């Protein structure tokens, strides 16, 4: 272990973390009571979209905290530490994620989701593409496998950090994490997740501010700290460490394709009205810019304080424990936990809604009555949390391999079929299926280096190109989408009932 902590310090950190976890359990408890009171036939809707009445703060944080996770709080700063400012710059691509997601698809999704009563992100694809089985299969499989793996990896990262900072065993941190998420996600649904996310967002922001101010004070005068890093290794302070082409492709990954990530875009299904949506962009932007700049840059600057960390991911916690009093270091741990749990909560809802609506209700039991659906909804969400817990307790070897493809694979699959489906009438189910499969496969082949097709850039470039060609080409070569669907998605008038 890199740092020598007194047991007093460890205890304070542990206590701060427990206080934070209890707050989340209380949230879960109240959300569960609310769900218990919900009428049976409205249960599934309330569970996944909560009446579509969420306000600007919640929407802003659902997107911001949903997307910012261990990547922004641990891994990103770690890479800022080991790779340098050129990586910090890459993360700036995510600054305006709220604007991209809500601005590009938010409003149209808001209108269409109300027309078709969409309960999941994948619903947008299933309904637009005529309930095509290939589209459904690729979507469900992609979300369950890729998001599921990503969630497990987040859990593992969080529990390891807990172990390092408190000295308590890995399984204890894992259990606390899992129980908390289980309570507010499985029992509270999206209301639980969104209430928890407000707490998490505040704790994350407190942690970021504390660390930024504490770190900056320690690093002054700034220029000499920066020069000391430059002397250690000039590559750490120049953008040219990565070629412009590669840097651009990373701005595509962290900026452009955000709408292809279900756990970020699901905010589009639940906001109250366009005023709330516009304000959510403003609020979310301020949070994301603050978290990203402060943390990832501080991760880089930690090099001036601890030049020889064995594990770069430890940059932020190590800095926290050096420059902050123990209770604020505990807040930092809670902040990282918050970032991870908020992402996990959003992903659990996505996986659950996908399985219940787009697998169970679509194919296994379309005539399920409300009581049965309520049971299936709760129990499948519980099962997902348990599966994730077990996966993190005994991480399979394949996990690391899958995670490499998780975000890029999903984005490559969903990006073009989503945006072309929303804004181009000619896109049809065959084009979408081809685009999804082709995009995902190309990304895996490229990122896994099975074939040299990336041309010195992130695999996203070639996978987006392939996906675009397939979505457009195959759509043009096959018949149009049924008229009723196009009317619903583009028309002023639309058929309220789908004829049986």
């Amino acid at each position: 272990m890199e740092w020598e902590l007194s047991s007093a310090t460890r205890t304070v950190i542990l206590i701060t973390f427990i206080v934070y976890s209890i707050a989340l359990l209380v949230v879960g408890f109240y959300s569960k009571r609310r769900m218990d009171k919900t009428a049976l036939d409205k249960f599934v809707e309330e569970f996944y979209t909560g009446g579509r009445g969420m306000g600007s703060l919640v929407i802003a944080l659902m997107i911001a905290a949903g997307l910012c996770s261990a990547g922004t709080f641990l891994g990103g700063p770690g890479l800022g530490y080991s790779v340098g400012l050129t990586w910090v710059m890459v993360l700036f691509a995510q600054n305006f994620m709220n604007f991209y997601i809500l601005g590009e698809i938010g409003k149209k999704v808001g209108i269409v989701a109300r027309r078709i009563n969409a309960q999941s992100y994948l619903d947008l694809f299933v309904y637009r593409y005529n309930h095509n089985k290939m589209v459904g299969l690729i979507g469900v499989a992609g979300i369950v496998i890729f998001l599921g793996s990503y969630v497990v990896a987040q859990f593992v990262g969080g529990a390891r950090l807990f172990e390092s900072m408190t000295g308590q065993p890995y399984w204890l941190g894992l259990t606390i994490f899992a129980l908390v998420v289980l309570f507010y996600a499985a029992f509270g649904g999206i209301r639980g997740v969104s209430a928890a996310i407000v707490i998490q967002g505040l704790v994350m922001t407190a942690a970021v501010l504390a660390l930024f101010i504490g770190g900056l004070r320690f690093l002054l005068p700034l220029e000499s700290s920066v020069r000391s890093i430059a002397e250690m290794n000039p590559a750490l302070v120049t953008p040219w460490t990565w070629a412009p082409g590669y840097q651009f492709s990373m701005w595509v990954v962290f900026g452009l394709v955000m709408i292809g990530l279900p756990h970020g875009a699901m905010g589009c299904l639940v906001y109250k009205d366009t005023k709330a949506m516009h304000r959510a962009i403003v609020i979310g932007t301020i949070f994301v810019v603050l978290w990203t700049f402060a943390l990832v840059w501080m991760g880089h600057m930690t090099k001036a304080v601890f030049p020889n960390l064995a594990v770069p991911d430890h940059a932020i916690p190590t800095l926290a424990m050096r420059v902050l009093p123990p209770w604020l270091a505990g807040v930092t741990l809670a902040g990282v936990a918050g970032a991870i749990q908020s992402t996990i909560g959003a992903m659990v809802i996505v996986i659950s809604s996908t399985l219940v609506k787009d697998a169970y209700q679509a194919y296994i039991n379309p005539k399920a009555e409300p009581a049965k659906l309520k049971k299936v909804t709760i129990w499948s969400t519980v099962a997902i949390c348990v599966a994730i817990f077990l996966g993190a307790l005994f991480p399979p070897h394949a996990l690391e391999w899958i995670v490499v493809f998780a975000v890029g694979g999903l984005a490559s699959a969903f990006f073009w079929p989503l945006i072309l489906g929303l804004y181009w009438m000619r896109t049809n189910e065959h084009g979408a299926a081809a685009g999804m499969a082709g995009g995902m496969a190309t990304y895996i082949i490229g990122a896994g280096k099975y074939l040299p097709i990336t041309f010195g850039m992130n695999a996203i470039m070639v996978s987006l190109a392939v996906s675009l060609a397939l979505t457009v080409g195959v759509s043009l070569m096959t018949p149009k989408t049924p008229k009723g669907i196009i009317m619903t998605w583009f028309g002023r008038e639309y058929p309220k009932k789908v004829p049986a």
Partner: protein
Amino acid sequence: MEKREYYSRDYDFAEIEMDPRFLQCRKEMFISFSTWLAFTAISLAVAYGLGKGPVEEYKYILGLPQWWFAVIVVSVVFTFIVIFLSLFVFQDMELSDTAGTGGEKKG
């Protein structure tokens, strides 16, 4: 609507009257995408342009390398741009279909 008409694949797109809200949505989509493109292009141009040359000869502003300071400034400027676009350019609209916006097709 009859099943035959709903599932028809043999129709003209021009038959369908576009909801004016969707036209505005598409406009805002292009605004959002263009902002991403501009922010990306300017940030990269500023960084790689000002960041040229040997690191030992870097000039510093407020303790930071000049190119890095400029990249931060670009982000700050675009934060204001994004806020302005969201609050003053993006338009409010009714999300549900009530009389006057969209509605049930008769028949």
